[in-house]
């Protein structure tokens, strides 16, 4: 029981990190960024490239090196997110929604098969494996690296929440998501804020990708597909467009999945998550924390 809770919490914190980017981008330009899961994959591969070019890393330094690589990978993937927004989404901002969605599917293809063309289609072993002592807390097996990774995730989420609530950019983001034209009239540089949103969202997804690579030990070019869907589910559960909702949704989905896999068997894990998604969309499409928004014509 405690083991399930712990597993759910751990996986859920990954989902939450990715769901944040989904939710932020959705909140600000009302786009479901299909390529978001692939930025998670890209983050893992950028870290993989950097770590393999460094060569052997002594085990004592693995946490430090991982942290450094994590930051670099966040910056690079964030920049990739900005480039994607600039070239694939911005020209289409006033086009029919269908065009924007198809463009996002195209970007997802470019990222997946671009990485596959460069790094090869086979799964790669992540160069750094985190190892640490395991201890039991109330019957749950918890390892030191898990705690470190969760701490990183928690720090990132708290930072983001503070950023959105306290800084002027955060205020601008919230204002744009309410009314883009109005924000423009109030002197907000809308394009710059959207760029920044993409940077932050992509960087968070990349952080999750690096941590997942370090934890699970192998990465492949399609790893972002399923987890992107799950992160979307998490964002919907929490209320899409709502930052705290995305965090809550991620953790909840982690728990739901952990228990679902326990009761129905591990091979049904993904089906279970999507069933939850469809259930939520039917019963409460605004999610737990989302308010009912009337759609503007």
């Amino acid at each position, binding site marked *: 029981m405690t083991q399930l809770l712990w597993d759910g919490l751990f996986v859920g914190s990954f989902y939450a990190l990715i769901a944040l980017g989904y939710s932020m981008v959705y909140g600000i330009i009302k786009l479901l960024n299909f390529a978001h899961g692939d930025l998670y994959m890209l983050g893992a591969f950028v870290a993989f490239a950097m770590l393999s070019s460094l060569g052997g890393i002594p085990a004592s330094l693995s946490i430090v090196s991982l942290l450094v690589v994590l930051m670099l990978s966040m910056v690079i993937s964030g920049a990739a997110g900005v480039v994607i927004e600039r070239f694939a989404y911005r020209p289409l901002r*006033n*086009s029919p929604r269908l065009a924007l969605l198809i463009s996002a*599917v195209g970007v997802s293809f470019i990222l997946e098969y671009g990485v596959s*063309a460069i790094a090869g289609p086979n799964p790669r072993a992540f160069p750094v494996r985190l190892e640490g002592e395991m201890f039991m807390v109330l019957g749950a097996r918890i390892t030191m690296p898990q705690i470190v990774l969760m701490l990183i995730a928690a720090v990132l989420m708290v930072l983001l929440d503070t950023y959105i609530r306290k800084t002027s950019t955060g205020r601008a983001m919230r204002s744009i998501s309410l009314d883009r034209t109005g924000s423009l009239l109030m002197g907000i540089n809308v394009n710059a804020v959207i760029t920044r949103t993409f940077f932050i969202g992509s960087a968070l997804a990349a952080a999750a990708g690096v941590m997942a690579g370090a934890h699970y030990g192998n990465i492949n070019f399609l790893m972002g597909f399923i987890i992107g869907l799950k992160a979307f589910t998490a964002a919907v559960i929490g209320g899409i467009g709502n930052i705290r909702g995305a965090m809550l949704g991620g953790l909840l989905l982690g728990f739901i999945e952990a228990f679902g896999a326990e009761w129905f068997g591990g*091979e049904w894990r993904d089906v279970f998550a999507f069933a939850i998604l*469809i259930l939520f*969309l039917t019963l409460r*499409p605004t999610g737990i924390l989302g308010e009912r928004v009337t759609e503007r014509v």
Partner: protein
Amino acid sequence: MTTTTTTDSPNAAPSGPKNVPRRGRLATSLSTILESKGLGWGALALALFLPLINASPYALNIMTTAAIFILLASGLNIVVGYCGLLDLGYIAFMAVGAYTAGIVAKSFMLPLIFTIPAVLVMTILAGLIIGAPTLRLRSDYLAIVTLGFGEIVRITANNISVTGGPSGIFGIPGILKIGDFDLQQPAVFYYFTVIVVAVFVVWSARLGKSRLGRAWRFVREDEDAAEAMGIHTYKVKLLAYIFGAIWGGVGGVLFAAHISAVSPQSFVFLQSALVLMAVVMGGMGNMRGVIIGALVISLLPELLRDLAAYRYLAFGLLLVVVMIFRPQGLWPSRASEPERDDGAAAGASADASVAPAKGKSR
């Protein structure tokens, strides 16, 4: 169709200078051929004539696969092209159709053709399960839910024993056998497929011009205005979705008959994306364009076997570029263009260059 061209001629005048000079003489005559009424018959005649030139098993196999792909693309065209709903799990309907046909045919030892009622029931049911809750919401939700649905169907087929698990079902009975006449012979089956596909293609083109088809286009262009004009948008969208599902299910039956085996690996997301690609490349809503798109997408891999690693990368780039420069697809339906040019319909910019101006005026 004729009425729109006559009434729109004054409106077409301002957009004229933009379109006309770009077309050279060759392009004009090409487009006359492409828009002529005989094109469909010509294509059908060509399809029926081809086995007389080359009837090797390899060629027949490719041609049959391409024909089934055309059926899928014409079905997805109803959903994406006519109604503007993005379906990213379309292959799931083919999976439902193929599995239903395979299971029913195998357990009762029936020829596949008699499984069609069961297939129709199952695909319509699947369409309702996915469409009913999500079509009330924004169209983006539908996109991602269909993506999830595609995965659910594949994983479920992989996990349960009725569908044969990861190895799938094999040894599916043929489509029909009366005495010595066996529809399963490659050449005969090819003709059968072409005729079935032709019927469905014509049917979907007719649907596009029907009252329902006009309602679909209206919903695609401006859902709120459509609703205000008294169109029951939810019902209309659900109908589009269900029609798409039926097309996919029939495609599944043909697929099961063609391969005589069904396994989960045939229904990955990539397949859905390829069908979508065919619809988008060909021109959303334009049945002729969609058929050409489907032919290109299904035959190109046979020609470009060496470039397999970059194929999907190029597809992705193409999708983005086409969306930026021609959001309606490479060859959109012509009838809808003048309407989009003068209307202030939300985001109806046919050309990227006029988009900013429209955005400001809103």
